């Protein structure tokens, strides 16, 4: 890291509007309110923000390069870890891309299970957002309430996939395993209890005078600006633009669910908060419908060249042993070509661009990270606000730094 990287010292000392001088301050990268290791170089005139420059890359993990070294089925594990608050949705984008290249369709039961996991993930992602943002703006108890429900969701993740956070549950060709009866029971209980919990959060925040004065009118982003800057997800819908990939470009059977796209015309931090609350309610609605229509049947495509044979066949069938051996030593190969698939994550358009050269490893995998693009709007939102409002603005932008830096 060089000494002068990203430093805007030219402005320090320039005369400000209030008779003082401009001051350049460093937020982060180790700062308790930047949602990870984001560094912001902020020019202040008194307490007013005149310029914001995000410096990213402190969590650069080389995930896209790493995927080139892994076989197609191994890559799923790495997709979990870029946007670490919504692993199954990342899996879904990658799995859909690989499936489209291979030209396979997953069975209906797998599709519904994918929707269930996506919506649970959206809920847990919004819960983490609300807990940490509440904490930063002084609502300390929000963290305790939100993480209580998040832990319930993680327990369900553990029941269905064996792991709390990075489930790798959705894979090319289907899902890891069928839902257990206990999972469905837990989900039933969760759907019953969750609307009441959302009411509880709203009681704590929606009419809370401190929360309202910290968020209303703060971080304004007009619909035009949001579109020009490429914002997606609650950032875009919080500015009143009705755009949700689940409705606009449906995948995994989202067209058959009855739900509303949450939008708010407030265009500020409070609007984005309202959008997320509404999305949580809609997610519970989708979960209810998905659980009601969960069909019977297999959860994986019946293709022995792509997925391993069942364990019991290995003892009786020579062919199954050969398939098993080939899959776990070499993997499968994907026809040459490239494809872009985007899904709606808790943060916006989570895209996956995959290039295959016909071998058993990807030629290139590129993630279109919603957080990275949403971060561009930061300066537009923060301009001429007080420095303390920066915390609310970073909070409601909901950037996950793992997703930004990859």
């Amino acid at each position: 890291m060089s000494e002068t990287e990203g430093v805007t010292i030219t402005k320090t000392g320039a005369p400000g509007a209030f008779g003082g001088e401009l001051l350049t301050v460093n937020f982060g990268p180790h700062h308790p309110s930047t949602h990870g290791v984001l560094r912001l170089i902020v020019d202040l005139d008194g307490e007013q923000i005149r310029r914001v420059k995000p410096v990213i890359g402190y969590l650069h993990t080389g995930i896209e390069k790493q995927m080139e070294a892994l076989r197609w089925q191994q890559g799923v594990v790495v997709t979990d870890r870029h946007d670490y608050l919504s692993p199954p949705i990342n899996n879904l984008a990658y799995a859909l891309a690989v499936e489209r290249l291979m030209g396979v369709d997953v069975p209906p039961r797998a599709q519904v299970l994918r929707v269930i996991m996506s919506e649970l993930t959206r809920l847990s992602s919004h819960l983490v957002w609300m807990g940490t943002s509440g904490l930063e703006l002084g609502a300390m108890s929000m963290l305790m309430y939100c993480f209580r429900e998040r832990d319930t969701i993680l327990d369900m993740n553990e029941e269905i996939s064996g792991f709390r956070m990075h489930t790798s549950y959705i894979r090319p060709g289907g899902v890891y395993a069928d839902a257990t009866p206990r999972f469905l029971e837990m989900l039933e209980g969760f759907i019953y209890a969750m609307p009441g919990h959302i009411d509880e959060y709203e009681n704590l925040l929606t009419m809370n005078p401190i929360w309202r004065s910290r968020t209303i009118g703060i971080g304004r982003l007009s619909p035009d600006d949001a579109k020009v800057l490429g914002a997606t997800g609650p950032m875009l819908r919080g500015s009143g633009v009705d755009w949700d990939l689940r409705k606009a470009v449906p995948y995994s059977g989202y067209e058959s669910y009855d739900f509303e796209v949450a939008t708010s015309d407030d265009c500020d931090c409070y609007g984005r908060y309202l959008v997320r609350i509404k999305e949580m309610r809609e997610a519970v609605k989708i979960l209810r419908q998905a659980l009601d229509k969960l069909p019977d049947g297999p959860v994986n495509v019946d293709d022995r060249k792509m997925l391993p044979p069942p364990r019991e066949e290995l003892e009786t069938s020579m062919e199954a042993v050969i398939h098993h051996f080939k899959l776990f030593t070499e993997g499968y190969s994907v026809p040459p070509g490239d494809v872009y698939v985007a899904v709606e994550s808790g943060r916006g358009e989570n895209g996956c661009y995959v290039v295959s050269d016909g071998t058993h490893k990807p030629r290139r995998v590129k993630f279109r990270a919603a957080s990275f693009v949403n971060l561009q709007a930061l300066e537009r939102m923060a301009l001429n606000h007080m420095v303390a409002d920066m915390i609310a603005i970073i909070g409601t932008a909901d950037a996950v730094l793992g997703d930004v830096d990859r």
Partner: protein
Amino acid sequence: MGIEELVESIGSHVLTTTLGKVVGWGRGNSVWPAQFGLACCAIEMIATATAGVDIARFGSEAMRASPRQSDLMIVSGRVSQKMAPILRTVYDQMPEPKWVISMGACASTGGVFNNYALLQGVDKIVPVDVYIPGCPPRPEDLLNALMILQERIKAQGILPRQ
């Protein structure tokens, strides 16, 4: 009053110990971690502080925003080459005695990311006391690591790291 009677009268009200044990007991039960979240493990670190597992039972709920006030650095997540000097600076800013927990596979060894971008183990730049396996480890794993560290601190006495 003779010395025998004195000993007899106060004997049942006094505990004798060494200074090292008292200091170790005090330090071990009030380990304040620095609030230093990096990646996925940081979310599980937050979960450790919430009501479900409640790290406050072990005296470590006070996550300090300033390294100057903290005794323990929990390296929660992957450390990139760009972050490494900052991590070392934060560590250097912490007052002695200080301890480090390396949380998760990435912090301990680089994990699945054996590539150009990541530091292959945080022990290359700071001394680590306890390693936690897992990707990410459960909150209970972090509590277990804290308990192991507490045992170690209590055994170290007045002058740790000799």
